[in-house]
């Protein structure tokens, strides 16, 4: 069952700008099993999208740099070492990606049908007519009404939610083994968000596709993800099953994220909290835990040394000093106001 489809090992990506080197992703390791949904959660700028683009090998080098030692194994093959030919089979055929803003992600001067058949015809030798028939079927599959006439329309003639459905149709055109959804619902309103998430979920179940769902919204993740990875400033701070993360969060950051999600199941009116402060500047990443300046339970050691990764069993891990036995005995959490 749990056969590994994708293994990301020690991925590190930096961008070289005028100000210096921005370390967007700092040694990230995770894996995705076949047919499973992995959610990558984190706030803006934590390296989620860069990780997603790296898996598709869409990172522009330069200005970016994928560091030595990074590995992205897809069925055991390293995506980063693919040659042009292998890469063109892999992209769109074996792995597909959908982006946050479907309007920007669709070519404005090309009909929706042509954008779908472009994918089909690149990966299998079929006639234009056949491909168009497949495109109509794909649009029907993603729930677009009157697909026969809609294929001839341009992206601007679709509504936001429909455009995202078109993106999903393009992504599923060649039945990929892996779908990366980079914030697929962020630009949509809440009712549409739920529809899109359900659509991805249904298609995934039907086709057995593995999905990496990237989002900053834990609410989106709750009923779709099997496992969740929480990223913060280019690192994974906690990982675990859906249950682990939602019911037994270990890392203070995960905790803070959960407190920021409104809940309908609580009777009393609850106060939504926000996380004070801003993530660290990745031009000069902090020596210790990147979350220490915003953490409620920060200790002396957090500011000076990188926290170790503690294992809580069944793949539930968190990188935090609170759970470590190696920390100095006298070190206890303090609040920043006291300092």
């Amino acid at each position, binding site marked *: 069952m749990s056969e590994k489809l994708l293994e990301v090992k020690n991925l590190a990506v930096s961008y070289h700008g005028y100000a210096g080197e921005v370390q967007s992703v700092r040694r990230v390791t995770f894996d995705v099993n076949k047919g499973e949904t992995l959610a990558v959660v984190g706030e803006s700028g934590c390296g989620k999208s860069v990780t997603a*683009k790296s898996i*598709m090998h*869409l990172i522009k080098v330069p200005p970016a740099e994928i560091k030595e030692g990074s590995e992205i194994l897809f069925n055991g093959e390293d995506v980063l070492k693919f040659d*042009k030919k292998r*890469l*063109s*089979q*892999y*992209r*769109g*055929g074996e792995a*597909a*990606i959908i*982006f946050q*803003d479907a309007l*920007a*992600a*669709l*070519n*404005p*001067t*090309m009909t929706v049908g042509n*954008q779908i058949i*472009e*994918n089909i015809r*690149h*990966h299998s030798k079929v006639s234009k007519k056949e491909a168009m028939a497949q495109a109509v079927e794909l649009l029907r599959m993603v729930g677009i009404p009157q697909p026969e006439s809609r294929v001839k329309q*341009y992206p*601007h*003639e679709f509504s936001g939610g429909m455009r995202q459905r078109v*993106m999903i149709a*393009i992504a599923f055109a060649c039945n990929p083994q892996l779908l990366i959804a980079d914030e697929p619902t962020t630009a949509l309103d809440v009712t549409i968000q739920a529809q899109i998430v359900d659509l991805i979920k249904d298609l995934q179940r039907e086709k057995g596709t593995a999905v990496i769902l990237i989002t900053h919204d834990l609410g989106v993740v709750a009923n779709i993800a099997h496992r969740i990875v929480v990223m913060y400033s280019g690192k994974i701070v906690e990982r675990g099953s859906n249950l682990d993360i939602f019911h037994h969060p270990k890392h203070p950051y995960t905790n803070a994220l959960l407190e920021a999600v409104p809940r309908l199941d609580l009777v009393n009116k609850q106060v939504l909290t926000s996380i004070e402060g801003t993530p660290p500047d990745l031009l000069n990443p902090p020596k210790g835990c990147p979350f220490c300046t915003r953490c409620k339970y920060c200790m002396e050691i957090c500011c000076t040394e990188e926290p170790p990764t503690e294992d809580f069993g069944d793949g539930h891990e968190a990188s935090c000093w609170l759970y470590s036995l190696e920390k100095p005995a006298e070190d206890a959490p303090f609040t920043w106001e006291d300092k």
Partner: protein
Amino acid sequence: MKKTILYFLKRLLVMLFTLYIIATATFFLLAATPGDALTARVEKLPDIVVERLYEKYGLNKPVMERYVTTMVGILKGDFGESIIYQGQTVPNIIKEKGPVSARLGIQQMLLGVSLGLLLGVLAAVKKGTIVDWLVVALSILLISVPNLVFALMLQQIFAGTLAWFPVIGWPKENIWFGGWEYTVLPTLAGCFGYIASYARLLKASMLDVMNQDYILTAESKGLSRFEVVRYHVLRNSFIPIVTNLPMTVAMCITGSFFIESVFSIPGLGLYYVNAVAAQDVTIVMGETVIISAIYIAVVFITDILYTIVDPRIRISGGKK
């Protein structure tokens, strides 16, 4: 459909009104300049002859009366006779000089625009390499030096020192296809500006398109770099080119004063400027109105072209 017809009618009205304003402004500007076309000629003539001359061209009448006569004439399509060259009328001049300017302009444009677009694609695809730098350096050079300077330099080197081409002149027979040796240097001198501006325009536009998300989508489908450029980048980056092109066409066929004077080419541009210098009001009015009409029509064509290259834009805002 009804909406489209209404839109066209509205546009036509606006175009005619624009033309009317241009004609009026030109008329009063010419009327406000001191002296007139006859001043220099009548200095030594007896008063009675002077009077008759003024009478003949109607230059003795009050400004407003002349304005009405001119406007009525334009409405009828009669711009009047040249004051300087007897018997010459605007249609005659355009029939005679128009093709000369048009051939020169079309040759310049074909060479300049095609070379410019080629260099633009090269610079954008090879961004950051030596090719890109060379194209940028070349276009800065070509755009900053006026074509008059190039014209004189080419004339000096290729017609003077090397004597490969005639120094001045223009083919008198077979005006569209003959006497190419006369046309080489003026065409070259005039096309440099187009090379530079189109190379820069296309490069900027392509780089902009290449940063769009849909290029990432195209790449994520597994398309090769060539396919991405061919099917996704080029069409979208041609939108500004298509809208610039009609203006270039208009500029070309209405002639260029500098090139035409350096190479003594009997074209519209040279004639037009000379007419202004000599205050040949009828000719200036006529040419201004006709050239303006061409430009106004070109702007209209541009708007239609927009809707062809960019499906997001539809005439009158309705769906097809």
